[in-house]
């Protein structure tokens, strides 16, 4: 480090990097380490008993299953929305474009109670779904709806810039060589969008797995049926079972970190494909 510093005439390297490392350690690294250190108080068997108890396993299935499905729904509709926002002009487009980021800006608890109000049996949407036998609020389907809301901006905002940068020459060349519109999309445009689409999918998935605030209001939190994994941590905490809470947290953290590495890989791939750094 000292060697590379001699190349720069700018001041403040030691101060800024030192402050960054101290602040990062105090706020993020040391508290995160506490979670892993706490689990060492458990024997392997105790740890396994907690993380493989039937109620917790049911929560993994719901959390991961609903998150995957929500990310897939967002991949399809997020792509359609990104396409519409880039390729078509229509009234209210600027407002819609700005509102796509609403799930980033709206507090999750507010989103949670608003979605519950919409999908409750007497709500705007629930009153039409209930007679059809579709129960959304206070059921696993409600978890899915909340996770779709939370993950919505990710795919739109990863695909949109790539679509905007796309040279029209590529599609013109495809068209002049006799490709129809669908062939042009499938063989020319889609492969360029794919890394960004997968990145958006993975980001939406990662966010959905850890989500708490928007889900707990609409889920109904029925044991074995509609409990998400973060709620299992809360339940243990409320019983002052810190070891149990920590064990489940470690499972989630390890999963999140693996996902983070995968996302970094996807972003590097996108950058290589499109020359754009995410």
């Amino acid at each position, binding site marked *: *480090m000292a060697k*590379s*510093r001699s*190349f*720069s*005439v*700018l001041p*403040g*390297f030691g101060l*800024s*990097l030192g*402050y960054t490392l101290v*602040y*990062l350690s105090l706020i*993020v690294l*040391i*508290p995160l380490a506490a*979670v892993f250190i706490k689990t060492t108080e458990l024997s392997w068997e105790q740890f396994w008993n907690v993380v493989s108890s039937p109620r917790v396993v049911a929560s993994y299935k719901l959390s991961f299953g609903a998150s995957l499905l929500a990310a897939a729904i967002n991949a399809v*509709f997020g792509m*359609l*929305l990104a396409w*519409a926002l880039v*390729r*078509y*002009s229509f009234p209210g*487009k*600027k407002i*819609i474009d700005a*509102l796509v*980021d*609403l799930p*980033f*800006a*709206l*507090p*999750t*608890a*507010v989103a949670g*109670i*608003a979605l519950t*109000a919409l999908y409750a049996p007497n709500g*705007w949407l629930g009153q039409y779904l209930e007679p059809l036998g579709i129960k959304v609020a206070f059921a696993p389907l409600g978890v899915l709806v909340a996770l779709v*809301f939370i993950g*919505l901006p990710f795919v739109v*905002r990863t695909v949109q*810039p790539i679509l*905007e*940068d796309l040279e029209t020459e590529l*599609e*013109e060349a*495809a068209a002049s060589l006799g490709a129809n519109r669908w062939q*042009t999309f499938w063989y020319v445009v889609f492969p360029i969008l794919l890394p960004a689409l997968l990145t958006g999918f993975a*980001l939406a998935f*990662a966010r959905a797995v*850890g989500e*708490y*605030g928007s889900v707990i209001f609409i889920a109904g939190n029925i044991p074995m049926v509609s409990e998400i994994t973060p709620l299992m941590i809360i339940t243990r905490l409320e019983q002052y079972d*810190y070891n149990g809470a920590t064990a489940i947290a470690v499972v989630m953290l390890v999963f*999140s970190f693996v996902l*983070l590495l995968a996302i970094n890989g996807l972003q590097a791939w996108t950058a290589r494909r499109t020359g754009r750094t995410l």
Partner: protein
Amino acid sequence: MSIVISKQAMVTAVPGSASATRFEKNRATREPLWVKRIILGLGLTFFTIFLLMPLLAVFVEALRKGLEVYWHALRDPDAIAAVQLTLLAAAISVPLNLVFGIAAAWSIAKFDFRGKQILITLIDLPFSVSPVIVGLMYVLVFGASGWFGNWLVENDIKIIFAVPGIVLATVFVTFPFIARELIPLMQAQGREEEEAAVVLGARGWQVFWYITLPNIKWGLLYGVILCNARAMGEFGAVSVVSGHIRGLTNTMPLHVEILYNEYQFSAAFAVASLLAILAVFTLVIKSWVEYRTHKPGH
């Protein structure tokens, strides 16, 4: 992680109707009308159901029992205490992360050192930690049976189930926002201007104040506004460390939860509507900053 996305919006070509006509007029880049209608129809239906309706529902539910009930819910002392605590948590955590963001971006963008990529990944780490785990972490460190539990009790310092815990949790969940905004921006701007200033005799603070700051001011505002929205809206992490003591450790989102669980729906939505207004305000400023930074010749 969210910022990884929003940052892009800043460096992209201007999203607007002008750029769409370029595609719509070109036979090679437009779809048949019926395909266009299906894509628009599906996309806008999805937008309406999942974004527009939840936002409208907040205001409709808040005003369902009339303005009287609405104002009453907002004038409740517990609601006012919650607003004050939320403002306090944001007023502490946003400046802390602002100083950190500038320091991190300065070291990463203006100097070369080993492990830079690892540092950037570590700064992003808080985005991939579930809010509930954030709360748990601080309970394990500062809680009564945590690492510093005994010492804190002996010295009569309360962090968990008190305001400091709420601030800490808020700092963690908003940690990367400003740094993630500034790092790519300052990397793209390079070092030449600052180096020239130093060679001409400027001091460190002068370089920052007269060269760097004017260059990054829009990115800075962008990061601050998103950081602030998250700081005021955080629920999961704050919920774990708060203890839900009315009038003392309740933030606005927690107050919404309590009212909602007590079936005071109109009151819950009334407080929620303030947060929804904040969200809309955030999006307006964000769009405005994007518009400013896209201006031709900028």
